[in-house]
């Protein structure tokens, strides 16, 4: 987060110990700026999901504080995208996207109109009436993203959303996500274990180490948006990837020590 930028949410000295005794996170401090695109990068088991779920309010920290300087988030301020599309199989794409609005008590007509708009934004206009099982993995993920964005959230949390997709689909969804972010300027926290994906997407990367989970490096990727295939093949991209890989290696070594 750049100096002087207002922060959306601030974690100070956050720790999480599960009932099983696992210390998933220890002393995590992190200020997430409004409009930022932050990637959480780290090996499996370093507490990325735990951190994300704590920001979402789905898990409470055992220690430390999570503060929202601009006021606590409302029921529609946070969107969440899981690793799996996590759609309701008995509902159409449209009904799935309309769900957050309907849960908030918005009348069905209006909710579906807004959901349809959002589906069009993720290029699924002609699939409104399709059931999830009739959609491809990439399309399901788009529906999931549309659902997360339909409430116009201030904060979008994504937990390895594209990990299960093939590379072609992943690249495409990366670009679509950046377009959506550029257009609406919500804040994104994007969990990934791919160095390349994090460098391509994020403006800032928090590198994490495991056992106990903690942040070991906080790197800025000062490259202009929109980023496209030109960026992906540029020397600057390669340099950033090298830098982040080294930071990740150091984080893994710290764990082994």
């Amino acid at each position, binding site marked *: 987060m750049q100096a002087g930028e207002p922060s959306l949410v601030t974690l100070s000295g956050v720790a999480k110990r599960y009932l099983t005794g696992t210390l998933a996170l220890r002393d995590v401090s992190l200020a997430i700026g409004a409009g930022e695109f932050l990637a959480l990068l780290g090996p499996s088991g370093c507490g990325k999901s735990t951190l994300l779920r704590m920001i979402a309010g789905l898990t409470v920290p055992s220690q430390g504080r999570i503060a929202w300087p601009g006021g606590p988030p409302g029921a529609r301020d946070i969107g*969440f995208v899981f690793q799996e599309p996590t759609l309701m199989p008995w509902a159409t794409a449209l009904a799935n996207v309309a769900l957050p609005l309907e849960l908030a008590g918005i009348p069905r007509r209006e909710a579906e109109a807004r959901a349809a708009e959002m589906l069009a934004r993720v290029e699924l206009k002609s699939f409104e009436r399709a059931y999830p099982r009739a959609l491809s993995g990439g399309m399901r993920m788009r529906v999931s993203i549309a659902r997360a964005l339909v409430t116009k959230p201030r904060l979008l949390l994504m937990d390895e959303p594209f990990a299960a997709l093939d590379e072609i689909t992943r690249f495409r969804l990366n670009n679509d996500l950046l377009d959506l972010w550029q257009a609406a300027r919500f804040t994104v926290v994007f969990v990934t274990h791919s160095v390349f994906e994090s460098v391509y997407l994020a403006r800032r990367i928090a590198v994490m180490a495991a056992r106990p989970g903690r942040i070991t490096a906080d790197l800025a990727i000062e490259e202009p948006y929109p980023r496209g295939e030109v960026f992906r093949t540029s020397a600057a991209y390669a340099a950033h990837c090298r830098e982040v890989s080294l930071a990740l290696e150091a984080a893994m070594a710290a764990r082994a020590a």
Partner: protein
Amino acid sequence: MTEEGPPRLGLTAEGWTRLLAPLAIGLAVLGLWEGITRWKGIPPYVLPGPVLIAETLVRDWAPLSASLLVTLKITALALLVAAALGLMLAVLFAQSRVVELSLFPYAVILQVTPIVAIAPLIIIWVDDITLSLLICAWIVAFFPILSNTTVGLNSTDHNLLDLFRLYRASRWQVLWRLRLPTAMPFFLAGLRISGGLALIGAIVAEFVAGTGGNASGLAYRILEAGFQLQIPRMFAALVLVSATGIAIFLMLSLISHLLLRRWHESALGRGERR
């Protein structure tokens, strides 16, 4: 009837095989049965042939159909009450773990106790004979619905549950929009089992009660025919019982298919699965 089958009947080549193959076997067995009874000259009071049974079915249709209606009424009512109560109780269990833990063992006890053993008691305790038959059929039918629906209500995808929590959904919204739809295939599977059980329960209870008069169901017809050594009529009643059971199963399968076909794996068309 071609191998392909017209699409409007919704049957593929394999669908027709599934329909025609058992039919062919059935016809072959019936033919053999008829042949043996004729050639060996087996008297009808020992083993009537299918043709005689069919004739009896037509000749005695008036009393038999009246009894069929009685049995059907009890079966349908028992199934309806079992479905409603099973579903309600399962929802209650899903809302409160304490209620589930304290009541579920009794549901199990009700299930494992043989109905023939409790039926006489129920018939003594309850004055109205129809009501006592209904209770017996209900006892047998309700457990599969209860236990299946309970499992279904607890099978919710935990990520979806988190999503509902994120949007601060009320308990009611979680139940109505998430838990119940998840439980639907489980409930319907239970219903299909219970349909047959309700019929069995009704028949067993009728046997125990041995009711005569105009409130008598198919089981009484079987008993009566047995006493009077009208064996063809006994078989005719038996045929009706089996046919009823098959019809109930097919109907519930159809309902289940119509409700689930658009989204659930169990109801996927064969062609689509390929």
